[in-house]
């Protein structure tokens, strides 16, 4: 049998954390009902805890405790527990068995001691108890400090410090123009904006051509119907409308058309006897 490992493995002492606040002293075993010992054991934070408490009863200074008498106390404590609940106390029994072994080793003649020696085992136990004792004491001192909410208090209703974050966006003139160029490059065909432009409608061309035809019986070139002084855009429109108007007048028998060759000048004149509109 070896020394119980120092935690975290399957061979751990394995006691349970007691969540209750008060530390039940040894006196708790003397409590009335059947569950007294069960409760008392549950009050300990495992066998090491119980050992530490027993050791404390021996002497104030943990360095001076007697492991042998500690073992005796532990074993007799468990012996006295007649109504021990085994499943709860398994860890305690493991510890008891180990301590019994340690005790017999310590008492045996020294000639054929195995390794590690019982003294080494005892030293380890000793060191562990010291460390646990030190931490328990430290915890007590820590809890006894001036604690916020118990001994000292913070401002009841602080106004609070506020940091308003303000984002300043950064973009340069170049980025802006570049972005527009990018958009244009990417998507220009998708946008068509129709602009107002000066045009000659078909109706006004009809009026104009037929009234001008009424003035003479001679052939006139279509080009002569263009409004004087019109700009290029209007001239284009007037040309197209006048051409359609000439076709319409010819269709309704009010004018006749002539063209000597392809792309040659288009001429038209009033049909004799036709009434101008």
């Amino acid at each position, binding site marked *: 049998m070896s020394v119980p490992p120092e935690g975290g493995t399957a061979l751990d002492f394995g006691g349970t954390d007691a969540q209750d606040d008060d530390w039940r002293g040894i006196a708790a075993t003397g409590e009335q009902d059947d569950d007294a010992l069960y409760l008392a054991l549950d009050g300990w934070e495992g066998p090491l805890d119980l050992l530490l408490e027993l050791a404390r009863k021996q002497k104030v200074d943990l360095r001076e405790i007697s492991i042998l008498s500690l073992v005796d106390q532990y074993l007799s404590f468990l012996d006295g527990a007649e109504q021990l609940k085994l499943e709860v106390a398994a860890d305690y029994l493991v510890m008891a068995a180990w301590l019994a072994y340690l005790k017999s080793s310590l008492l045996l003649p020294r000639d054929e001691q195995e390794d590690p020696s019982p003294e080494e085992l005892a030293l380890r136990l000793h060191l562990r108890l010291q460390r646990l004792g030190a931490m328990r004491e430290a915890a007590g001192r820590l809890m006894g400090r001036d604690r916020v909410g118990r001994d000292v208090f913070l401002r009841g*209703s602080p106004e609070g410090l506020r940091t308003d974050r303000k984002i300043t966006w950064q973009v340069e*003139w170049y*980025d802006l123009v570049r972005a527009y160029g990018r958009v244009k490059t990417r998507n220009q065909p*998708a946008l068509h904006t129709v602009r107002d432009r000066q045009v000659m409608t078909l109706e006004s061309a009809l009026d104009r051509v037929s009234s001008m035809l009424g003035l003479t019986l001679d052939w006139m070139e279509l080009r002569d119907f263009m409004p004087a002084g019109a700009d290029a855009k209007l001239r284009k429109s007037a040309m197209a409308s006048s051409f359609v108007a000439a076709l319409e007048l010819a269709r309704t028998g009010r004018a006749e058309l002539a063209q000597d060759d392809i792309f040659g000048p288009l001429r038209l004149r009033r049909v004799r006897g036709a009434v101008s509109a």
Partner: protein
Amino acid sequence: MSDAPESLDRALEAALFAAEDALTIEQLASHLGDADKAELREALARLTQFYAPRGIHLVERGRRWHFQTAPDCAHLLRKERESLRTLSRAATEVLAIIAYHEPVSRAEIESIRGVQTSGGTLDVLMEAGWVKPAGRREVPGRPVIYATTPEFLRHFGLASRRDLPGIDELRATGMLDPVQEAFEAEMAESHDDGDAEADATPDQR
């Protein structure tokens, strides 16, 4: 005075400091083990005077006493922190489109960009103070239309939107490269018509 404050003064300080609400003299008295009210009043007066030159003041408001920050330190409680952030590519594009085409609706912006524009992008531009809603377009649905602000001009150092370079200038500086063929062809045609910049330079409207 500060060397050895009276114990009543210290108790008052602690009580008023830790209190969640302003306290009346009665509340203070019961708090401090039924202290004498006249003494309390004296102590409060002493403390008021003691704290008068400091960053925190003891004040009475509607018969209740409390500590508060000295009025001239109040600005310290609020700090504005400026952080610089670069405008995202999407936001820059939207801003550019608004600048060149304003006023435009969101649908129009999207049709120009060819991508959907998240509402957050416009929010950022409005938060930056560069874009603002400028009424509604009188078409079905009456969409909100957006325009740039004077702050926009100021940020970019522009006297007016006319200062934005036109398409010709963009091309000259290579900003329209690489140009798609269809796009180029169309632009060439509209140049013949003499109204090339119609789309590009908003200043002609």
